[in-house]
Every structure is written in structure tokens, then in C-alpha cells.
């Protein structure tokens, strides 16, 4: 073997030493479980006894399962309403923070607070806020003479309550918008001004087109993250009065860990996986139409 080949081989082996733990991790914690869960979805398995092969029965059951449909509806309701709200609020916050005024850091921290504390603590706090008798929400409304609803206890208001809480969780989106705003070339703003446009025109014809990649990015990130919502539903309502907040992952959890139906839960999980995959591919395909990439001169 020539010297060069030998050196190349040595380098390759060295590099594999570096990436070995990661590859092992991908195999053990991602790929193998993924394939296993596909097999599991074809069985009935309660962990106590051994798995029983039942073919596609889980999927057949799933399709006619009213709770499955309800959980899909709840998840779509949640994502479809909360994501646009969060994005709009995040965009407004980012635009505000982009103005060169003093004390920006303080405001940035305040706007980011709900996001870094997201999870159990915040959900429990909002559970108290939404307490129908003595919580902050209804007390505030009572001040204006409005009789507040039962929030988390009312099937109609349970999901809106969670939506309200999550609407303030804008930190991550806001930062990405900010980075996007700061990458817009300023000479274009001047060009609009010279043409006689005002700030609104600047926003509409320069800022928004340049923000389309980050809007797209935030939508993709947002959907993937929100479709997997669990903690908030579990902590605040446990699935909600009359399954009003039974989101998809909550349903998977119930079937897997409350009823110990690992096979059925696996089929539920695989359905989620396929949907997310299709959604993401679709989004990337469609992005060509409305996302503007400057580096490619406007069209990818």
C-alpha cells in the first residue's frame, strides 16, 4: 500500500474514532428503536407477558378509534390556532426589539421569560391563574364586570386556556426573527424611502420578503414542536374535561403507560412519524414558491 493510501486510511480510522460514539448513539437510541417500534406496532404487548403478533390489527383499530380522531382534531386545533398567534406576537416583539432604543436587553429578557421557564412550573402557575373561583383570570374579568368561564374545567374553554398560556411562549421564534431582521440590507430601506414610501411600505416590500426564510423556518420548527405537546396537557388537565385537551402524544402516553398497550401505542407513534415526515417534505417543496432567498437572486 502506498504512503498516501496508508495515511488516508489512518486518517479515516481516526475520524471514525471521533464519530464512533455518535454513530453508536444513532443506532442504539434512534434507528434500532425505530425499527423495533415498527415491529411492535404489529403486536399486542403489555410488557408483563410476551408479545403476540396480530398483523395490521392495531392500525385497523386505530382508524375507527374515536379517541384517535379526537386526539388528531385536538392537536390540529392546538397547532392551527396557537402557531399563527405565536408567530405574529414573536414578529411584533422582534420588530420592537430591533429598534435602536435603550434598555433593549431588559425587554428582551422579559419577552423571553415564559419560554425559558416553559414546562411544568409555568403550566402549574397558569393552572392557578385559570382557577375559576379565585384565579387571576376571572378576578381580572370580574373587575370589568365579566363573568369568566370555568377555563380548564369547561370542555369548551380547556384548550383555549392552554392556547392563551402558550401564546406568550415566543422566545425562540423571536430570536430567530431578530436574527433575520438584522440580516436585511439597509440600503433597500433607503431605496423605498427615496421612492416616497413610508415605514409601512418598507415593512411590506422589503422586510417581509426578506423574512420569508425565517418565517418558513419558524413554521417548520413550530409545527414539529407543537405537534408533540404533552407536558402542558398532562399537568393542567390530564387530557381535559371530556377529552377536550387529549392531544396526540397524550393519547400515546395513555395507551402506553396507563393501559400498557405497547403495541397499539407504537402504531399511534408511527402514524405521527409519517405525518410529520410528510408535512416537512411538503413544506420544503412548497417553500420554493413563497420563500425568497437572496443568495439565489430571488428564486431557489
Amino acid at each position, binding site marked *: 500500500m502506498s504512503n498516501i493510501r496508508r495515511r488516508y486510511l489512518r486518517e479515516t480510522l481516526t475520524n471514525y474514532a471521533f464519530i464512533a460514539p*455518535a454513530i453508536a448513539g444513532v443506532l442504539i437510541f434512534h434507528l434500532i428503536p*425505530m425499527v423495533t417500534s415498527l415491529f411492535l406496532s404489529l403486536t399486542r404487548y403489555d410488557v408483563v407477558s410476551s408479545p403476540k403478533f396480530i398483523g395490521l390489527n392495531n392500525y385497523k383499530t386505530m382508524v375507527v378509534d374515536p379517541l384517535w380522531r379526537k386526539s388528531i382534531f385536538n392537536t390540529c386545533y392546538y397547532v392551527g390556532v396557537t402557531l399563527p398567534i405565536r408567530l405574529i406576537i414573536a414578529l411584533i416583539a422582534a420588530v*420592537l426589539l430591533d429598534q435602536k432604543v435603550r434598555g433593549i436587553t431588559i425587554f428582551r429578557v*422579559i419577552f423571553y*421569560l415564559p419560554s425559558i*421557564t416553559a414546562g411544568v412550573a409555568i403550566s402549574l402557575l397558569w393552572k392557578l391563574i385559570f382557577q375559576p373561583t379565585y384565579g387571576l383570570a376571572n378576578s381580572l374579568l370580574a373587575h370589568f364586570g365579566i363573568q369568566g368561564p370555568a377555563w380548564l374545567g369547561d370542555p369548551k374553554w380547556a384548550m383555549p386556556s392552554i392556547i392563551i398560556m402558550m401564546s406568550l411562549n415566543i422566545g425562540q421564534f423571536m430570536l430567530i426573527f431578530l436574527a433575520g431582521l438584522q440580516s436585511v440590507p439597509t440600503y433597500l430601506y433607503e431605496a423605498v424611502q427615496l421612492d416616497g414610501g413610508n415605514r409601512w411600505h418598507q415593512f411590506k416590500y422589503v422586510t417581509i420578503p426578506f423574512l420569508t426564510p425565517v418565517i418558513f423556518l419558524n413554521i417548520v420548527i413550530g409545527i414539529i414542536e407543537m405537534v408533540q405537546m*404533552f407536558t402542558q396537557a398532562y399537568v393542567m388537565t390530564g387530557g381535559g374535561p371530556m377529552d377536550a385537551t387529549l392531544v396526540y402524544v397524550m393519547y400515546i402516553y395513555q395507551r402506553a403507560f396507563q393501559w400498557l398497550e405497547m403495541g397499539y401505542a407504537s402504531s399511534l407513534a408511527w402514524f405521527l412519524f409519517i405525518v410529520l415526515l410528510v408535512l416537512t417534505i411538503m413544506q420544503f417543496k412548497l417553500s420554493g414558491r413563497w420563500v425568497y432567498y437572496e443568495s439565489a437572486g430571488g428564486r431557489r
Partner: protein
Amino acid sequence: MKIRISFSIVLTYTFLILGAIIFITPFIFLITSSFKTPAQIMSVPFRLWPDPWRWQNYVEAFRVQPFGRYYLNSTIITSLNILGVLISCTLAGWGFSRKYFWGRDFFFLLILSCMMIPGQVTMIPLYIMYSKLGWINTYFPLILPSFFGSPFYIFLIRQFFLTIPDELADAAVIDGCSPFKVFWYVGLPLVKPALVSVTIFTFLAVWNDFFSPLIYLNSPQKYTVMLGLTAYQAEGFTHWEYLMAASAIAMLPVFVIFLSLQRYFVQGMAMSGLKG
């Protein structure tokens, strides 16, 4: 011209202050509630300020649940996770940033594509595997995976490593450094901001994690802070005053770390978001 600028600044400040009030109100409610007696929390009509300020809630919250123990547990788990992530992801990020070698791009893409797999698909087989190994109600499921790399952080760190010119690494090799020494003495110091960002992200993710402790931990002595918070709710009855005090303490480290290191946080987010 001057008047217009002032108006826009006033407008900006108005919205900023309005927004800030809305965002900070829940936290003010949290703090004031944590100092109230149960009767005051449940009082109608609502009174914002506690009277008197009941500091004992914070003490009693630790007595009613072994919250100090939970804090220790969370700290151990979070620290070990950070250690694991830093070790495995820097190694992998460096490896994938080297000059092309056979299989480099294939495996990198493979690892990246794992970001697409939602946790729920893998969680059931992993749970069963841990169950058979007898690792339920131990910390292994919560710590081990971090020592085997995490796709997002590998990607992020690799981005930073890519900005290091090859000449620097080559120079070190000529000087007689082993590949690991090149990594350690040339690579790592130049990506410190990335390491800080990854540390912060990992800290936030693990400290706030609820799902994994929920399914893997059974004994209260092993509970994490987030899991322990839910323990203040009994069947049909909640000790709000202790819960709010404990929540405030639970949020404290997150708040402190974010405040002191936000520069790296913001930078990390931007790097990952835009290049991706």
C-alpha cells in the same frame, strides 16, 4: 424629521412597556401568591398583595416534599448530561468537520435525519429495553443517551468547527500533534462560544424535562424538581402556596443562567437557525 423620529420612539416604547407588562404579570402573580396563606390565595375578591408576607411557605414547601433532594437530583442529572453532551458532540462535530473521508457525509446525513424522528416513536422500545435491563427507576435512561451524541448539537458544533481554517490543524499536525491533541488544543478553544451555547441549551432542556423522569422514575427520593412540583397536588386538593414557592425556586436556576449567559444563548440560536 425630528418630530417623526421622536414619535416612532414613543410608539416603540409604548408597545414595549405594554408588552412587558403582559409578559411579566404571570410572574408577579407567581411571586405574590408564593407569600400568601391558603386563605388569601383562595379569597374572593382577589387581593394582589399578601398581607402579611409569609416567608414560611418557602421553608414549609421543603418540608412537605423532600424538595432539597429533588434539587440535588436534578443537579446531578443535568450536570452529567452536560458532561456527556460536551464530550460526545464535540468529538463527533470535530470528526465530521474534517477533510472528506469515506462515509463522512453519509453518516452525517444519517445522524441529522434522526432529528426528524419524534421521541414518541423511540420511547416505547427504549422503555422496554430499559425495563428488561432493570434500569427502570434508575438514572441510566436519563443520563446515558447524552454520552452518545445528540444530532442537533453535533450539527451546531460542526458549524463552528467548519469556520476553523484547515491550515491551523495542518500546522499542528506538522508540529507533531496527535489527532486528539489537535482537537483538544486547536479545535476546542476556538469554538468556546458554541460550547457555552450547547451547555445552556442542554441545561434548559434537561432541567425542564418532565416526560423522561415521569416514565422512568418511581421512587420519590429519585424525583427531579419538575416531577416533584406535580407532587404538591393531591387528589382534588392543591397546596397552592407551597406549589408557587417551589415553582419559583424551580425556575430560579434557569433564570439566573439565562440572565448571565444570554449573549451566548442568542448567538447559538442565531447560528443554528439561519445556517440551517
